[in-house]
């Protein structure tokens, strides 16, 4: 059923508008949000692979040149899109489930932001049109600002404003790059652009083409939160509500992957493109872990770790072999799951004890043992401890870099994984194991069941993907085979 392809975007978007419209009717918006949150992961499972042309404008063949071109905005739904949109749907369901169970009165505008962000990110993943991608990225960026501003954490407005200011540099550069690409190829459809490049209709040595590549690359750094935008991105995560932070990092990972795949298709013949990818991947890994180790705020610590983990994804793509690409995309899936688990887990602790400073915490294992164990396993997964999912993807990445002739990258990846483990030892000891400080007040409140449920689902996914990685890698390698 190819008709379901645009429905994946239309349903959350319509739901967002309805939630905003009926924001005064608490029961209605809770019911609607819950129902649509269940539907979102189901639709990609029911849909067939294929293409959707908006307005019914199928590709045309030029009478003059015999070249096929796409006049319509095109959505492409393949195995990778299925995987990411399904996983995003699961996360949206868990986030909405936590939200509507945590608050007696749900906020229509807040749920609007969650569903509009979901629609924008889904469109970004599906689109084969680079300008369309930019528009939906901008919508997603505004949604992220709204979600931060709607949280109850101190300094949220300042962080939201800073993110917008950064966006005022990154966004226009991305648009300028897309504009230059349109000017030299005559199309914003990625398939058409790739055709023009592969058939020498555009010179890859042209300084204008290289400039377009540089500008789009810079814009992508902003969209992904890679250095030099890692500081603001980690601040964004730490200022959102726990469930929202879990969703925001999923938005970031999907944005990174979708724009990176588009760039890879267009620019992968440029030798410098892969070198830049590997360079920024290593920088993200090194800066992310170094900054995470020095933090005293555990939410910020996870924020920096999340940014550092993005480096592993980019590394896989930058190595440009089938195995490395599969490993990088598998790492993206794992990061979405593990980081969501950790943001929810650490966030709920911060909500309960009203502090996220590890110097003021301690002895929490006696009060929240289930939570402690789930956070510990999540941390092990992120650090790459076997037999969890993080281990599988990191092992694949290390093997890929060794077989590509870059043993240095393997060593760096191992060092970063060890340092990630140290971060978790530090934070777990400081929060749960060391003696409880006298001035720390533990409220007589239990961890909400909805939060435990969401964390348990994510944890089960970590374990299953760790034991049976082929469930995911089969889908990914099918897509990668077509990409190369």
């Amino acid at each position: 059923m190819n008709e379901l392809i645009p429905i994946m975007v239309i349903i959350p978007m319509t739901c967002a508008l309805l939630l905003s419209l009926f924001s005064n009717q608490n029961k209605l918006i809770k019911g609607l949000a819950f129902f649509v949150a269940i539907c979102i992961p189901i639709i990609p499972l029911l849909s067939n692979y294929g293409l959707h042309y908006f307005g019914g404008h199928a590709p045309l063949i030029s009478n003059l040149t015999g070249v096929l071109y796409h006049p319509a905005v095109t959505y492409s739904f393949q195995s990778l899109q299925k995987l990411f949109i399904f996983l995003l749907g699961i996360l949206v369901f868990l986030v909405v489930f936590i939200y509507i169970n945590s608050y007696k009165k749900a906020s229509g505008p807040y749920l609007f932001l969650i569903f509009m962000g979901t629609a924008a990110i889904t469109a970004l993943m599906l689109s084969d049109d680079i300008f369309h991608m930019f528009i939906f990225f901008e919508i997603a960026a505004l949604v992220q600002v709204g979600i931060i501003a709607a949280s109850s954490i101190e300094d949220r407005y300042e962080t939201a404003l800073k993110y917008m200011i950064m966006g005022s540099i990154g966004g226009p550069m991305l648009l300028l790059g897309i504009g230059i690409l349109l000017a030299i190829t005559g199309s914003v459809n990625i398939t058409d652009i790739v055709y023009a490049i592969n058939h020498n209709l555009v010179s890859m040595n042209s300084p204008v083409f290289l400039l377009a590549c540089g500008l789009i690359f810079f814009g992508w750094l902003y969209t992904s939160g890679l250095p030099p935008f890692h500081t603001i991105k980690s601040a964004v995560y730490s200022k959102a509500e726990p469930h929202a932070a879990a969703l925001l990092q999923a938005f970031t990972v999907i944005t990174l992957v979708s724009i990176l795949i588009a760039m890879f298709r267009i620019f992968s013949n440029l030798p410098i493109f892969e070198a830049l990818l590997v360079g920024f991947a290593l920088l993200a890994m090194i800066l992310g872990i170094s900054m995470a180790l020095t933090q005293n705020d555990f939410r910020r610590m996870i924020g920096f770790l999340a940014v550092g983990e993005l480096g592993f994804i980019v590394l896989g793509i930058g190595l440009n072999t089938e195995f490395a690409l599969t490993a990088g995309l598998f790492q993206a899936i794992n990061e979405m799951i593990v980081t969501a688990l950790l943001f929810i887990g650490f966030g709920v602790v911060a909500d309960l004890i009203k502090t996220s400073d590890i110097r003021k915490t301690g002895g929490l294992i006696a009060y929240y043992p289930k939570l402690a164990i789930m956070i510990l396993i999540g941390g092990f997964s992120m650090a790459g401890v076997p037999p969890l999912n993080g281990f599988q993807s990191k092992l694949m990445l290390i093997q890929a870099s060794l077989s590509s002739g870059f043993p240095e990258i393997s060593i760096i990846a191992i060092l970063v994984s060890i340092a990630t483990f140290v971060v978790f030892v530090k934070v777990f000891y400081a929060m749960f194991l060391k003696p409880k400080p006298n001035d720390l007040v533990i409220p007589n409140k239990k961890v909400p069941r909805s939060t435990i449920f969401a964390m348990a689902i994510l944890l089960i996914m970590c374990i299953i993907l760790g034991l049976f990685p082929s469930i995911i890698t089969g889908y990914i390698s099918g897509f990668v085979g077509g990409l190369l």
Partner: protein
Amino acid sequence: MRFYDKLIGIFKSFKDSTSNTGVSANLTAELTLISTLLMACLLLRHINILLSAVILLGFAVVLLTNMPLIPKFKSEQDDSLNKMLFYVIITLGFIITIMYWGGNFV
């Protein structure tokens, strides 16, 4: 400056890390930073082995003589908008320069 004063200066630079876990984490960060950056320099051997050796040695000297790096490093990456904007503009300049003049030579 005497060695003792240098040592005291180093201790004072770790303002927020007077606990065991804090100091251990900062030391880990310091070692991770140095080792990973030096390892990354080795990647330049794919361009030129001599260039890699020269940069590696130069970088090692700079890193080791400027220890502790983490306090300086942390202050450069705080939430100050000015610092963020500075590094954003520097990166934009770097990418465009590399792309424009070095586009096809790696």
